[in-house]
């Protein structure tokens, strides 16, 4: 029997119940260690749903993917280079404003995203109401409300994962518009970036990172054997916005 294993990445801010969800999905079928060469905990687990095998990676909890701490680099590199079949962004329903920062960053990187609003029970207690359908419409990806602690919403989440793997869900992640001067620079960089990375990486996102002067991403890309990338880097560094 040939088994196809699908990879799921779990991203989210610290204290959003990401690991509760991870434990719930994998039970004891998990192991932890460190990411190669980093003192950042790597946790992966396995589960089966509707005859499909899944490997799920619990990424480090971060507020962002751009501040370039070891945690954030691990999470960023996994999403960009390992290209998980689905990335689940876990949000804290009681602090959506803060949590959506990371969600928007992930949506710029990949369109295979499911947003999972956790701690719905907590939000209810605090009198916070969340219009899930509207959120899904605005973000352009499925949004599933859950309470990992009470094991609520997990079936819907698993079904959504299954549908996305089968290609039954078309997503259209929100495209964040930037100021005119930045958009003009993106437009100039895009063809060059596309020429070099092709469809391998999200070109608009790479252009944005270059404009931001993200040297850590450049280093990571070079390690992935993109020698020609230096060309674009040189171009970008001549044109990069001083402060965005």
């Amino acid at each position, binding site marked *: 029997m040939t088994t196809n294993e699908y990879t799921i990445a779990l991203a989210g801010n610290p204290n959003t119940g990401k690991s509760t969800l991870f434990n719930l999905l994998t039970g004891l079928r998990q192991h932890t260690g460190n990411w190669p060469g980093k003192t950042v905990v790597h946790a992966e687990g396995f589960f089966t749903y509707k005859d499909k095998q899944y490997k799920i990676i619990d990424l480090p909890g971060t*507020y962002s993917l751009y501040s370039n701490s070891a945690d954030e680099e691990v999470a960023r590199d996994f999403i960009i280079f390992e290209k998980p079949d689905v990335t689940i962004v876990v949000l804290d329903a009681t602090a959506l404003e*803060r949590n959506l*920062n990371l969600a928007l960053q992930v949506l710029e990187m990949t369109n295979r995203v499911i947003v999972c609003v956790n701690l719905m029970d907590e939000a209810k207690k605090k009198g916070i109401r969340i219009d899930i359908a509207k959120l899904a419409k605005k973000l352009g990806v499925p949004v599933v409300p859950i309470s990992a602690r009470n094991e609520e919403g997990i079936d819907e989440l698993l079904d959504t994962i299954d549908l996305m793997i089968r290609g039954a869900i078309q997503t259209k992640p929100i495209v964040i518009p930037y100021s005119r001067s930045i958009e003009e620079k993106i437009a100039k960089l895009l063809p060059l970036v596309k020429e070099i990375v092709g469809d391998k990486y999200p070109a608009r996102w790479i252009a944005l990172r270059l404009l931001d002067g993200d040297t850590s991403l450049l280093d990571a890309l070079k390690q992935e054997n993109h020698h020609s990338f230096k060309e674009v880097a040189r171009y970008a560094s001549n044109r990069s916005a001083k402060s965005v």
Partner: protein
Amino acid sequence: MAPTKFDRLSEAEPGERFRIEKLDIEGTMKRRLLDLGFVPGCEVTVLQKSPLGDPTAYKVSNTTIALRIEESSNIYGERIRDDNE
């Protein structure tokens, strides 16, 4: 805009609220502060100072974050005293 018109976040006392106007910080630290919620237009509450006066804890969009004076003295905005209301 000249930052001198504004107060520094580091000047705000525990219990006060503060509306952020501008971050006079560059690079990854600026990025980090923005990611943590210290965004222009947003209101933070000063919770308490540590025993030696630094760092200070702030409430920012529902989470407690402590900053050192190095950072908080470069965050400019408006102190909102309760007697202003």
